[in-house]
């Protein structure tokens, strides 16, 4: 139910511009938010959404332009000012201290104190009250790190409400949630809006815009390119606006081979996490040549350990990792790579690339110690250069040259470097984790195409992704990881997002009786 235009304006920005050294992240952006309204700020990655929100929240200072609250201009020097004016923010990467309790996290920064002494009883009471009032149940004494992602997000929302937020800003709120959790979150947000809270959600997902918002602003390359009532625009129109061209989201997926010859498998694999808790509890999986097996699941259900144990960074407590008939579970990373296993890690900046190194140096990682790149321990720089130039051409890596620092490249180009490095090794098996996180649509299409090409060549691929869309676009079969176990496995053709989503949350499937 869209709010009428007569509701009072709560928040307004006029001509906000933000310039980082050379980049204009936001250019002359003006938006309006009314009481009880839900608006969406839609844009691709890098469109400037997060910058805008950080400005609204006082983390960045705008280069020019002004913010008005209740019609009066304000200036935020720090989040403190924004909070004082009734703004609350739920960040994409939660701003929660994992070692503190729920109560401590909620009251942090606005603790009830007497002489510097925190009145925890009173704090706990307000948290309980608050969560009752908004139906956001959460155990106030639990440690944050023990909660599921969905519950952690609840704590984030409670944090804002505890500060009497009248405007709630949510940055990519559904990125880490299961479909079921998304529904719950939307219900909560609708309730809040009905209660008079104004809400801004920042997202790049069209369905969410359609499902939740009253109005939508569309950002592209730092500029506001459109604004409309959600009800009056179709998803295709919005997508067009956002990308500036027609997007073909569906990829043509080659049919799975009838009976792929299995080349890689896990047999009752047990692994414990770095905190000493069981993370994988008896995982069995098998991938065949020319097959893509997708792993669905909510983050934190063992994906990290699964990647590390297959890549060889940690050793399993028990169980086998079979590759071409041999148990590789005790092999070094290097030996696995040499045998034909490859790994595209999830966080390219942390585990994929050496950011201060040049493109050519990054492309040499993992093969620097043998011909042609080096001989008897001495590097051959001409060979390094030649390899880089070739891969840059083959994989369409756009840089100022092979000696450009990787840290200066865009996310898409960084990812292409990793793909080039892994794919050019001609692996027989490839583990790919979250290959498109943070990439724009163009780059995503490219990555999909290369992955499917590899599959055509007969490579066995294990694809871990939090995005169901991605799995349904690429995988031949989908398995669901929940609580460190594979709770479900099915050919993609015979399942659907709802079913997978259900397994992701509960670990089991209850046929709804409708």
């Amino acid at each position, binding site marked *: 139910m869209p709010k009428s235009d007569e509701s009072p304006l709560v928040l307004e920005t006029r001509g906000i511009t933000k310039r980082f050294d050379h980049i204009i992240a936001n250019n002359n952006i003006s938006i309006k938010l009314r009481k009880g309204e839900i608006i969406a700020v839609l844009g691709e990655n890098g469109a400037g959404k997060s910058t805008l929100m950080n400005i609204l929240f006082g983390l960045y200072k705008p280069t020019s332009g002004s913010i008005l609250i209740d019609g009066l201009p304000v200036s935020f020097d720090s989040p403190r*000012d924004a909070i004082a004016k009734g703004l609350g923010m739920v960040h994409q990467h939660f701003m929660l201290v994992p070692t503190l309790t729920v109560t401590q996290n909620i009251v942090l*920064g606005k603790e009830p104190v007497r002489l510097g002494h925190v009145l925890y009883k009173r704090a706990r009471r307000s948290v309980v009250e608050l969560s009752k009032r908004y139906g956001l149940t959460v155990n106030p004494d639990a440690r944050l790190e023990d909660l599921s992602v969905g519950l952690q997000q609840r704590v984030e929302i409670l944090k804002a409400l505890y500060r009497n937020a009248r405007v709630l800003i949510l940055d990519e709120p559904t990125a880490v949630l299961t479909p079921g959790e998304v529904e719950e979150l939307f219900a909560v947000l609708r309730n809040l809006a009905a209660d008079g809270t104004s809400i801004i959600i920042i997202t790049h997902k069209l369905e969410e815009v359609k499902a939740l918002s009253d109005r939508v602003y569309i950002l592209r390359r730092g500029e506001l390119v459109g604004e409309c009532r959600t009800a009056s625009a179709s998803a295709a129109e919005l997508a067009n606006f956002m990308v500036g061209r027609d997007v073909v989201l569906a990829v043509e997926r080659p049919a799975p081979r009838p009976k792929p010859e299995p080349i890689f498998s896990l047999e009752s694999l047990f692994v414990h996490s770095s905190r000493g808790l069981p993370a994988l509890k008896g995982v069995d999986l098998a991938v065949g040549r020319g097959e893509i097996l997708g792993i669905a699941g909510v983050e934190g259900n063992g994906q990290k350990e699964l990647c590390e144990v297959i890549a060889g960074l940690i050793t399993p407590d028990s169980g086998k990792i079979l590759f071409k008939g041999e148990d590789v579970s005790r092999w070094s990373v290097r030996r696995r790579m040499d045998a034909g296993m490859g790994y595209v890690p999830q966080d390219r900046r942390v585990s994929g690339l050496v950011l201060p190194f040049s493109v050519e140096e990054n492309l040499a990682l993992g093969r620097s110690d043998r011909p042609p790149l080096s001989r008897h321990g001495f590097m051959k720089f001409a060979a390094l250069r030649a390899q880089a130039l070739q891969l840059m051409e083959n994989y369409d890596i756009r840089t100022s040259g092979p000696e450009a620092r990787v840290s200066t490249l865009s996310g898409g180009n960084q990812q292409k470097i990793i793909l080039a490095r892994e794919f050019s090794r001609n692996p027989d098996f490839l583990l790919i984790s979250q290959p498109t996180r943070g990439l724009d649509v163009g780059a995503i299409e490219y990555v999909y195409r290369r992955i499917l090409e590899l599959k055509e060549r007969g490579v066995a691929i294990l694809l871990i992704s939090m995005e169901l869309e991605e799995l349904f676009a690429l995988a031949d079969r989908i398995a669901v990881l929940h609580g460190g176990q594979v709770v479900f496995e099915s050919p993609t053709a015979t399942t659907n997002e709802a079913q997978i989503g259900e397994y992701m949350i509960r670990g089991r499937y209850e046929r709804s009786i409708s």
Partner: protein
Amino acid sequence: MIDFFAALLTPQLFEATVRLATPVTFAALAAVVCERSGVTNIAMEGVMLVGAFFAAWVGWISGNPWLGLLGGIAASALFSLLFAWAVVSLHINHVVTGAIMNILAFGLTRYLMMVFYGRQGTSEAVAKTLHHYKFAIPLLSDIPYVGPAFFNQTPLVYLSIISVFAWAWIFKRTRLGLSLIASGEHPMALETLGRSVYRVRYLAILISGVLCGFAGAFLSIENSNSFTEGMTNGRGFIALAANIAGGWRPVGVFIASLFFGFVDALQMRVQSLGIVKIPSEIFIVFPYVATIVAIAGLVRKSRPPAAVGKDFNIEGDGE
């Protein structure tokens, strides 16, 4: 053999244990406060040295050891502000800055030795040391072993013990403690809740400076009566080790410091007994070896604050 242990494990040994643990305790608490707030502080060695120097100097010219103590604390605090400015505001690497601060402290105290005393090595003795104010707590001090060790000491020793429990309480129950923990675990969370991480870290480093001031003053005008160049002798680093061994917790750190105090007291006692004909160096080296052993044995048991040693830069984190 039994005689040997009887001669060794006297009440004096335990008293000495607590006494010698005191500077390490202060410095280790300083390390806890800093590291919990996310700052790796290897500058403590130098900060302590500056504190020791100024405590001795102010104590000497004023003739009052309490003024000396204040002088030492003020100097340490000021000196540590320089560290804070470098790591928090200028975003220089914590460990590198710490190393430079130590170099600066050695140079500064050596130079001021020449300026104030006109010589190198050891300063003039203060007229009266803080050791003068030793007092026993009635009743408690009569408990065998524990009494003389903990309840017949000097004010600074009592203060170090009180500080331990005070800090345990601060971390557990107060707003300051909560802010320090958040700043060390997830600084951005604290910042987005409207509390300045810069300010919290400045405060933490300042507090650590004050605590190092106590430690330094203890060395120069409590345990001794003058300042000697380089008299901290690695205690800043031992404190860092005590902090790790104690699991970043005040009480744990206190126990670790007591352990170092005990090793130190033991080596002095064995040396003075002269029962064993072994070069004294073997004993002097005990605390350093003990540190390595403690690190080797305990380091994996606890988790350091997630953001310790990492720079925090609000706008730098953006696109």
